[in-house]
Each structure stands twice: as structure tokens, then as C-alpha cells.
């Protein structure tokens, strides 16, 4: 035994390729908080040749021009929540964050050292949530969020990626989901939820792999893993509206830690698993759960990763809020107006489906159905600030402090509305708001839409549980 332990070769934790086996993933997971990982990273060499080649192949017109013509005017500075939250620290000016990383990298043609790559990593993940807000305010239309995302890809290809996202990417490769939820786990969770709620909702059913349904519903792995009630709530609402819907046993994961990690091959693999489900089950449309980056990854960016020229998903896709507005407007779902929330309510616009997918008015049209006193944040719709948890930042231990500082902008936005109830139809924003409350204790509540709606629904007689 002792002999064996000595002989055991310690697998490297840091690699330039994604993790693709369960064994490697478990080794990495065993390295608590990534202590060993970051230690190994300190000594990890940069493959400058490969970096140079990647730059030559992918650093083209759009990015090149942005870097070249940036007027260094500073109009992007106060567009960034990190700049504001850090008391106008010049090092948080978006253009500086790119100039000092990607700009140098290009200037030196990839000939950089470990310390520089770590600086790039700490900037790309620790000072930016890729929310794309700054790009809206730049006179030249330079989208620093998109550049940061490109930089993340370069960092990932060199092995310089935060611990949790190396794991996240590995999860996708091993489980085709951001967490270790297998097909069996998922299907069992659906069955369990249907049984659990069947007494209250007779006939409740979560159809798996039903072909030609009207709606294919896809989700975030956190739901089966940590919040199975979310799946039950979705099922109840589909049940109440009489939708012909289904979930796929494979290809149900909408989210994409591979996108946050800059693992582009992983992005393609992940989104193709969802598109395969569409092709297999031939639904009329797909509806994705209340998540922002999931929509971004699968609906907005996904088709391009999968090589679909039109940029459209194989079947039309909607965010959950679009479906919800539809059934509220066409009367399939009726809410009891007397149950509207009485206290002031505000709304967190998630960058990923508002600024980056144009759904600003959809959630706003839902608000009058559920709130008596709806109050806008000062910066709203496309102009809203990121919650500060985006781009994967919520999950990163190494940048916890920076994330918490960033939360102050959102805190102040919320406080200024006078509302203590925040509606958040995005998993990431929801998490950030939870941490905001934990960190700053402003006494607020926050919620997804599904539980709010469920408290207000008028249940048609034929769907009510039969009295004993």
C-alpha cells in the first residue's frame, strides 16, 4: 500500500485543454478552493508560439479596429459598475482594462510571461462581468465586454482560468451540464417533482421526451440540483395553461459555464446537445427558464457556435418571460388582481436578455399584472447596471471581494427606488441579490417570477383537487 502511494503520479491540475474525464474532474474537485491549482498555475509556462498563432487566426477586423481607433477618451469609464463601485479607480476604466491586457498581448505578439497572463486572468474575470454596458456609451461603439470575452478565450487556451470555471467547463464536458446532474438524475427529479405536487394539482405531469410537443422546456442545472421546486413551478404553470409541453432527457441544460470560461469548443459541444434535442423531439418552439446567461449562450450566441448561418436556433426560442407575457395577455393564465404585491416593487433587468437580446419591454408589461406600485431603477432597460454577479463572477472565490464591492452599485440603485422587493427573472442576478442582502443587509426580498405568479393564479374549477 505504502509502495503504491509513493508511485502514484499526481495528475497536473492546470492544463491548456478542457477537462474531459470524470477522474480528472474529481481530482480537481478534491483540491479544495483551488489552493493547489493556483499554486501550480504560478509555475505554469506560457506557450507563446500557440498564443501567437491563435492571435493571427482570430484577431481580425472588428477587434483589431477597436483596439486601434479607441480614442482613449474615457467615456466608457463611468459606464462600468466596477469603476463606480471602486470610487472611480482609473484602473477600472474599461479601455484601460483592455489596453493593459489584450493591447499589450497583441503588441508583444503573444510573447508574454506567467505574471502577465495572471494579470490578464485577474482582469478578465476579476474586473469585468462581460455585461457589455460600456460599449453602449462609447462614441466609436467599442464593445469592451466582447473584447474581454475574447481575452478570456485566449487565457483559457493557455490554462489561465479561475479554478471554479475550469471545473465548470469540465462539468459540461463530462455531464453536458454545469453540474454533476446525469440524465438519470434529471429524469428522476422530474418524476419526483410530479409526484410531490400531484395531490395539490391533480393530473400534474412532467412529460419527458415527448415528440412534436408545442413547447420544449429547457432549464438551468441548478434547478434539478438545488431548486427542484422551480421545475415543479414551471410544470404547474404549464399545467394550468393547458400547454402541450415536454422536457428532453438529454439536452435540457441551457446554461454555459463554458462561455464564462472562454472554452469555445465546449460552448459548441454544449449548445449542440440542446439543438440535437430540438431535432430529435421536433417541438414547435423552445422556452428557456428564468435565466439570463442561459438565454445568451443558447439563443443569442449558440447558433453561431453551432455554425448556423442565420444565427437562429433550429426551432424558434423564447425566454420564459416572453411565454409568461403571452399567456397573461391571451388569458390562458388568469391572476387574481386582489393578490397583487402591495408594497413597492422594482425590477432587475438582466443584461443578458435585456441589453443583449432586446426583451426590455416584456418584463415591464408583466409588472402591472403582479405589482401595484412598480418602480423603475434610475438606470433601467438596456441602460441598467449589471448586478455584478455576471460573467461567472458569482462563483469565483478568488474575486469574491471584487464582486462584493461591485454589488454596491446595485445596492444603491435599489435603495434609491424605495422598494424592498426586487423581481429578478435571472438565476445569476438572483444569486447576486441574495449575496447582496447577505453582505449589506438592506432588508430586501427578491424573487423569480414563477413563485410570485403561482401565489396569484386563479385555478380553473376542473383543475382543482377534488374534495375528499
Amino acid at each position: 500500500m505504502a509502495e503504491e502511494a509513493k508511485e502514484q503520479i499526481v495528475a497536473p491540475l492546470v492544463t491548456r485543454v478542457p477537462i474531459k474525464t470524470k477522474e480528472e474532474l474529481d481530482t480537481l474537485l478534491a483540491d479544495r478552493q483551488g489552493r493547489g491549482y493556483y499554486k501550480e498555475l504560478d509555475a505554469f509556462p506560457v506557450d507563446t508560439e500557440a498564443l501567437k498563432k491563435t492571435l493571427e487566426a482570430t484577431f481580425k477586423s472588428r477587434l483589431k479596429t477597436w483596439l486601434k481607433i479607441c480614442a482613449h477618451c474615457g467615456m466608457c469609464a463611468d459606464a462600468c459598475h466596477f469603476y463606480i463601485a471602486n470610487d472611480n479607480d482609473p484602473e477600472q476604466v474599461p479601455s484601460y482594462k483592455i489596453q493593459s491586457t489584450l493591447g499589450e498581448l497583441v503588441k508583444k505578439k503573444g510573447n508574454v510571461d506567467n505574471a502577465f497572463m495572471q494579470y490578464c486572468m485577474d482582469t478578465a474575470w476579476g474586473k469585468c462581468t462581460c455585461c457589455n454596458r460600456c460599449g453602449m456609451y462609447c462614441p466609436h461603439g467599442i464593445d469592451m465586454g466582447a473584447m474581454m470575452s475574447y481575452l478570456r478565450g485566449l487565457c483559457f487556451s493557455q490554462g489561465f482560468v479561475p479554478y471554479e470555471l475550469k471545473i465548470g467547463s469540465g462539468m459540461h464536458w463530462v455531464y453536458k451540464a454545469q453540474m454533476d446532474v446525469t440524465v438519470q438524475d434529471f429524469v428522476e427529479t422530474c418524476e419526483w417533482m410530479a409526484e410531490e405536487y400531484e395531490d395539490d394539482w391533480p393530473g400534474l405531469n412532467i412529460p419527458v421526451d415527448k415528440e412534436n410537443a408545442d413547447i420544449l422546456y429547457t432549464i438551468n442545472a441548478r434547478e434539478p440540483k438545488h431548486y427542484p421546486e422551480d421545475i415543479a413551478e414551471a410544470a404547474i404553470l404549464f399545467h394550468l395553461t393547458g400547454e402541450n409541453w415536454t422536457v428532453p432527457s438529454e439536452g435540457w441544460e441551457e446554461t454555459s459555464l463554458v462561455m464564462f470560461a472562454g472554452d469555445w469548443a465546449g460552448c459548441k459541444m454544449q449548445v449542440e446537445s440542446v439543438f440535437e434535442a430540438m431535432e430529435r423531439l421536433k417541438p414547435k418552439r423552445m422556452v428557456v427558464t428564468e435565466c439570463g446567461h442561459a438565454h445568451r449562450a443558447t439563443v443569442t450566441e449558440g447558433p453561431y457556435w453551432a455554425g448556423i448561418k442565420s444565427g437562429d436556433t433550429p426551432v424558434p426560442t423564447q425566454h420564459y418571460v416572453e411565454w409568461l407575457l403571452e399567456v397573461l395577455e391571451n388569458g390562458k393564465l388568469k391572476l387574481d388582481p386582489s393578490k397583487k404585491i402591495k408594497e413597492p416593487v422594482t425590477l432587475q433587468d438582466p443584461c443578458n436578455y435585456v441589453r443583449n437580446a432586446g426583451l426590455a419591454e416584456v418584463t415591464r408589461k408583466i409588472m402591472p399584472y403582479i405589482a401595484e406600485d412598480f418602480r423603475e431603477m434610475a438606470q433601467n432597460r438596456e441602460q441598467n447596471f449589471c448586478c455584478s454577479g455576471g460573467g461567472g463572477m458569482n462563483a469565483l472565490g478568488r474575486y469574491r471581494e471584487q464582486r462584493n464591492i461591485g454589488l454596491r452599485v446595485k445596492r444603491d440603485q435599489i435603495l434609491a427606488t424605495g422598494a424592498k422587493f426586487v423581481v429578478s427573472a435571472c438565476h445569476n442576478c438572483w444569486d447576486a441579490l441574495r449575496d447582496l442582502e447577505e453582505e449589506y443587509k438592506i432588508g430586501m426580498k427578491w424573487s423569480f417570477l414563477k413563485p410570485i405568479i403561482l401565489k396569484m393564479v386563479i385555478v380553473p374549477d376542473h383543475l382543482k383537487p377534488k374534495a375528499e
Partner: protein
Amino acid sequence: MYEFVRGPLALISFAIFFIGIIVRVVWYVKGLDWRLDRVAYLEKADYGIRGALKSIFHWILPLNHTTANHPIFMGATYLFHICLLTAPLLLVAHVMLIEESWGISWPTIPDTIADYMTLAVIAAGGFLFARRLVLPYVKILTTGSDFLVLFIALAPFITGFIAYHQLMGYKFWLIVHILCGEIMLIAIPFTKLSHFVLFFCSRAQIGMDYGIKRGGQKGRGVAW
């Protein structure tokens, strides 16, 4: 000397300028890649063109949030650019020289107006220069080449002003002015002054991005 800068050198600089900006635009367009950029430029050209035009329109005119948030800077830069583009183009002396050489001409503005515009460019340029030294969030972005480029842009105006008012040796300053003008023309394709054309490319691209992918098809997509 005058004959040389006024004749062959002027021709060369105009040629470099025109060919240079055309090459810039051609390279830009050729380097767009629907897969790398993740924008269906061709497949969704209708949404793309709409987005591109909106994007340019909202920034050629001060119809954007940045102008509302930073009225002083944006005011200065609009003034700087409007005067910088119109004064030399409509200046009597310039139009006359062009008519002499190539036999084409167009309407002009009175010299007094051109003179005020020249002063406006110099004043606005001074402001742009000063904020680079003073504001921390601009200072950190500023490199030597920003000052150089600003200087290249301002030099024809300063020297033109000196020559026009015959403040010092006219002939000498006229030659210096012409040289500065030629340096600026040559610098445009090679420095960040290439934004003269690339501004339109960049704004069109981000406009297409929003118009096609990020909300344009949902009836939004103008986020500025």
C-alpha cells in the same frame, strides 16, 4: 520649395490619403467574419443595414446617452469635429488652389467664419489636450501617440491661422502650413486618425450586431 510642397508633395499626400482610407475600409470589410464575430451579416442583411444606419445616425448627431451624461466633453468634441471638417473644405484659399490645379470648385464660406472655426478647433483641441493631463480616468488611458495625433490634427489649423493673418513671415509659415496639412493627410490612414473612415465601419458593425442579434429582431436594439 513652395512649388514643391504645393505641387508634387501635395499630389502624393492626397494620393496616399485617398488610397489609404479606401484600403482601410476594404481590409475592414474583408476581415469581418460572421462566425468569429457571431453576427449573421449577410443572412440578416435587412436587420443589419437598419441597425447600422441607426447606429451611425445616433452618433453623427448628438442623439445618445453619452452626450446627455457628458455634455461638456461631447460638446467640445462635436464642435472640434464640425469645424475641423468644414473649415478647410470650404475655405476660399483651398477651393481656389484646387480649382487652379484640377479645374473643379464648390461653394465657399467667408474667411471670417473660417477664421472663427479655426479658432474653435484650436480651442477645443486645447481642451482635449488639457483633460488628458488633468482627469485621472483619461490620463491613465493616454499614451504619447495620443498627444502626437492631437498635435498632427491641430498643426494645420495653428499654422494656417498664422499664415492667414500674416503674423510672422508669410511665405515661411505658408510652407509650414502646407507641410503640416500634408502630414495630417498622410497620417490619417496610418494612425488612429483612420477613425475618419473606421468610425463608420465600427459603428456600422456594432449597429449590425445589435440590429441582428442583440434585440433588433425584437424591435429594440438601439441601446445608445
